């Protein structure tokens, strides 16, 4: 399909070389050194992955290469050579020919990266007309061909649609089509899948791989996800505070990371094998970049640091494409095996703390002149859940499956349309006013976004005490203050935090304050709504440790809402998988992760990138997107995307069948083989 004539080059030929790149932002007397001396080389047909935590300067490298820096950004030193030509010396007019021509770029947010009032076809055509003189006259056939190339179904119709008519994954495909229009030698992809769900992420990453194989372009992929690195990368560069601290081929990197920072990152990753212990953390924070660094940037957080580290800036050891920035030889770097307290997982008791039956949360769709209700968005459509004391149930699903709505409906923050929620044998859905208000101290919630979860105009003391005041707990003002100080201590914050405002804290610290706030009313159940998805890996580890510790100490039950399977594997006792408002499979965490039966669970799990390049999984790719909950498909909601769908899947929704003790699934294929066995199963307690 590809028309690219593959030039005969040696596979080793570097396409893009970056030397000593320095990019500054802001005022010239006190600049932010966003990129501070980066060398890297991209070869034909290879994927180079830049990995790093937020604010380490990886996006700035990409924008520097494109010369698309935001206002106030400037390249102060370095050289960028594209096939031997210096890009930084080109006049702006000539640079335009390279942008979108020899270098294509795709961005993180497909939702906002396309012009909302222009058809997607025209947006691709713009790039074709600029960089493809052959098709400049009538670009439409070429646009359709590009659409087909990036796997957009029904391209003849799609080219005339507007961005808002396409799903997130489709928009990202359009972005890729734009980038491909100039037949680039280098494609820069800046977190191309971060805003997408895992099943869609898998589709897009596979597409990029396929396109690379077809065209032989070099890809520079920017990500924060070590799983994505293992999945797609040939070579990897680890960024820390504006510099590359390690460059390596992917396989050796995952086998033996060399830089202390890289090593610590791996240790902070949650996973099933670390279930019974805490996670290793990186103490401290990334230093602000508005200062010169005479020494190693990681020094303050490095436990392997030695005297030599405090004398001079670290040298680059090894070759430019395979080395690391540290004074110490690999065998000199001693990272203590962390002394991590063991973690117990509580056994299931007989009586659930919270029990939801057939929980429904419908939002009316109003149409017409009189705004009559013509239908419902069935965000939550018949949910059965049991939450046991001291245990964690993970509610897993992709965005739009209704998991957050379910959490809020359970806590009566949204009043459910139907069904029942019992807390300690008390029916919540019929409770109102003062009795419900008094009961609220028993169940609390922690939100995803640490930036908006606290009133910026309130002191931390008042934020944490808010629940106590509302519930009339904690006695006098002085007593309350003492208790708040104790709570802060419990979540690892100094007493001085009392008199400060939320904006003075980092994301991780704010999440701790949010946890302290929830704990202040001594709840028995906490709904954690994606509490770590806005955090970097090292910070996520701290918060997960804290949550686990608190659970053990205070016998809390958690409903953990997330899309991150690694966190589930680390934290959860049980897992419920949601699809389009309903639970499709539920069971103990080990069973779900290893012996999932529902095709959706299988597909979801197989789509998660695993940080291990040697890991070969049986990939089960899902096609298409999740249907709208306003108009779910007849029959099994999943049948349109299910690779194993049969005739009856299109006719009726499958019943929930118990397969094993506590393991249930709603799928015709599962219930078929299980019908006779179900009755046989004696109610064994699960081992844990």
């Amino acid at each position, binding site marked *: 399909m590809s028309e690219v004539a593959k030039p005969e080059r040696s596979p080793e030929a570097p396409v893009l070389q970056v030397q000593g790149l320095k990019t500054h932002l802001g005022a010239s007397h006190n600049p932010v050194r966003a990129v501070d001396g980066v060398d890297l080389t991209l070869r034909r047909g290879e994927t180079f992955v830049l990995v790093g935590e937020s604010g380490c300067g990886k996006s700035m490298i990409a924008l520097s290469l494109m010369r*698309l820096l935001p206002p106030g950004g400037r390249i102060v030193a370095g050289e960028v050579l594209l096939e031997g030509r210096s890009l930084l010396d080109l006049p702006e007019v000539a640079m*335009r020919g390279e942008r*979108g021509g020899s270098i294509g770029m795709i961005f993180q947010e497909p939702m906002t990266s396309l*012009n909302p009032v222009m058809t997607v076809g025209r947006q691709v055509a*713009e790039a074709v007309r*600029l960089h493809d003189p052959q098709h400049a006259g009538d670009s439409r056939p070429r646009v359709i061909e590009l659409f087909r190339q990036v796997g957009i179904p029904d391209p003849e119709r799609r080219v005339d649609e507007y961005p808002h*008519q396409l799903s997130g994954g489709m928009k990202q495909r359009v972005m890729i089509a734009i980038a491909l229009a100039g037949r680039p030698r280098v494609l820069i992809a800046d977190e191309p899948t971060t805003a997408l769900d895992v099943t869609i992420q898998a589709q897009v990453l596979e597409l990029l791989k396929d396109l690379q194989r077809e065209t032989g372009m070099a890809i520079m992929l920017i990500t924060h996800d070590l799983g994505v690195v293992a999945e797609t990368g040939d070579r990897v560069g680890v960024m820390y505070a504006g510099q590359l601290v390690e460059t390596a081929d992917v396989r050796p990197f995952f086998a033996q990371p060399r830089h202390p920072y890289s090593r610590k990152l791996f240790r902070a990753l949650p996973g099933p094998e670390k279930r019974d212990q805490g996670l290793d953390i990186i103490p401290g924070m990334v230093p602000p970049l508005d200062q010169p660094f005479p020494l190693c940037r990681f020094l303050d957080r490095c436990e392997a640091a030695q005297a030599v580290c405090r004398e001079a800036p670290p040298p680059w050891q090894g070759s430019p494409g395979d080395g690391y920035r540290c004074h110490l030889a690999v065998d000199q770097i001693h990272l203590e095996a962390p002394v991590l307290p063991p973690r117990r997982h509580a056994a299931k008791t007989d009586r659930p703390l919270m029990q939801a039956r057939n929980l429904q949360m419908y939002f009316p769709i109003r149409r017409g*002149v009189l705004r009559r209700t013509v239908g419902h968005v069935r965000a939550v459509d018949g949910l059965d859940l049991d939450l046991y004391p001291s245990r964690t149930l993970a509610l897993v699903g992709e965005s739009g499956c209704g998991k957050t709505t379910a959490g809020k409906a359970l806590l009566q923050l949204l009043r459910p349309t139907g069904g029942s929620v019992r807390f300690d044998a008390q029916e919540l859905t019929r409770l109102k006013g003062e009795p419900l208000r008094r009961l609220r101290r028993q169940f609390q919630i922690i939100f995803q976004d640490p930036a908006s979860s606290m009133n910026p105009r309130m002191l931390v003391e008042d934020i944490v005490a808010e629940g106590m005041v509302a519930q009339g707990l904690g006695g006098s003002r002085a007593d309350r203050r003492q208790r708040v100080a104790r709570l802060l201590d419990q979540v690892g914050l100094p007493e001085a935090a009392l008199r400060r405002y939320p904006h003075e804290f980092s994301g991780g610290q704010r999440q701790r304050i949010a946890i302290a706030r929830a704990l202040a009313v001594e709840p028995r159940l906490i709904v954690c709504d994606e509490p770590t998805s806005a955090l970097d890996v090292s910070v996520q580890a701290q918060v997960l440790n804290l949550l686990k510790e608190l659970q053990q100490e205070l016998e809390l039950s958690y409903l953990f809402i997330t899309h991150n399977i690694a966190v589930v594997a680390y934290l959860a006792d049980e897992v419920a998988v949601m699809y389009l408002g309903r639970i499709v499979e539920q069971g103990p965490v080990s069973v779900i992760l290893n012996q999932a039966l529902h095709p959706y669970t299988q597909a979801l799990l197989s789509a998660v990138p695993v940080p291990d390049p040697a890991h070969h999984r049986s990939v089960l790719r899902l096609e298409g997107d999740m249907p709208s909950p306003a108009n779910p498909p007849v029959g099994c909601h999943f049948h349109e995307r299910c690779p194993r769908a049969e005739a009856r899947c299109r006719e009726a929704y499958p019943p929930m069948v118990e397969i094993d003790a506590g393991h249930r699934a709603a799928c015709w294929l599962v219930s078929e083989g299980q019908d006779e066995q179900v009755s046989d199963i004696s109610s064994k307690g699960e081992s844990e």
Partner: protein
Amino acid sequence: MMAYIVRRALYAIPILIGVNLLTFVLFFVVNSPDDMARMHLGAKRVTDEAIQQWKAERGYDKPLAWNVQAKGIEKLTDTIFFDKSVRLFAFDFGQSDSGRNIGHDISQRMWPSLAIAVPIMLVGLTINISFSLMLAFFRGTYLDFWGVVLCVAMMSISALFYIIGGQVLLGKLLNLFPISGYDTGIHAWRFLILPVVIGIVSGIGAGSRWYRTLFLEEINKDFVRTARAKGLSEQAVLFGHVLRNALIPILTGVVVVIPTLFMGSLLLESFFGIPGLGSYTIDAISRQDFAIVRAMVFLGAVLYILGLLLTDISYTLVDPRVRLN
């Protein structure tokens, strides 16, 4: 989509009823017709007969909202409220306090008003968009800075000074245009140029600065970065992407005022002696002709609501996000 527009149109009905009640209360309840009569007849010791006669001549002698003496439906219809307020819904504006037919006056006077307001809007829009687009193109440079300062300075000058300054400078000193007056038909243009020019100039400051903010807001959006990453030139980005998106708020902001153009410009018309609806209103205010003011309040509200409706419709035409939902 149609349903939405029909809904919006229906929403205008309670709003108009509200406006109607408001004007009724303001004109007949806060001050009784007796007060009005006394005010008009002026003299301190005005006789009751004179007041009664003044009221009878203008139909203000009926009960306000409920006629006890009348029979049947006339209890409601033979009242001031029905005669003076409810009839407005049929665009029956009645007689002015000086006895003229308001509806006829309006139909005569709206044309001169339009003759001034339409060119001011069209030419002004073109100039403002071009000027602000230039500022956006040179954003961050001294040209932009001083352009904005000029805009702020221009919008800090009262419209009165633009008019007086224009009349004195262009009309009186340079003798380029007649200072005031009007002519019928095609000859009117000589009298229109000066007010139109002044109207445009006085709007440049606020308009250009506002459009510049709109442009800059679009320029910072992600899709503009995408457009640059394609290799488009800055001009192509500005015209093809930024202008296109910023035009949506600009156009809908213009659409809302189109119907009210009929109302004319109060200041320009009265300074230049143009017989439009603006000077009609001003004259009514200074003569304290309540019937005309009341009619104009209602007419203005109708036109404004019409403008809101047109805005909704134009959104659905211009913005695919609204059109296709």
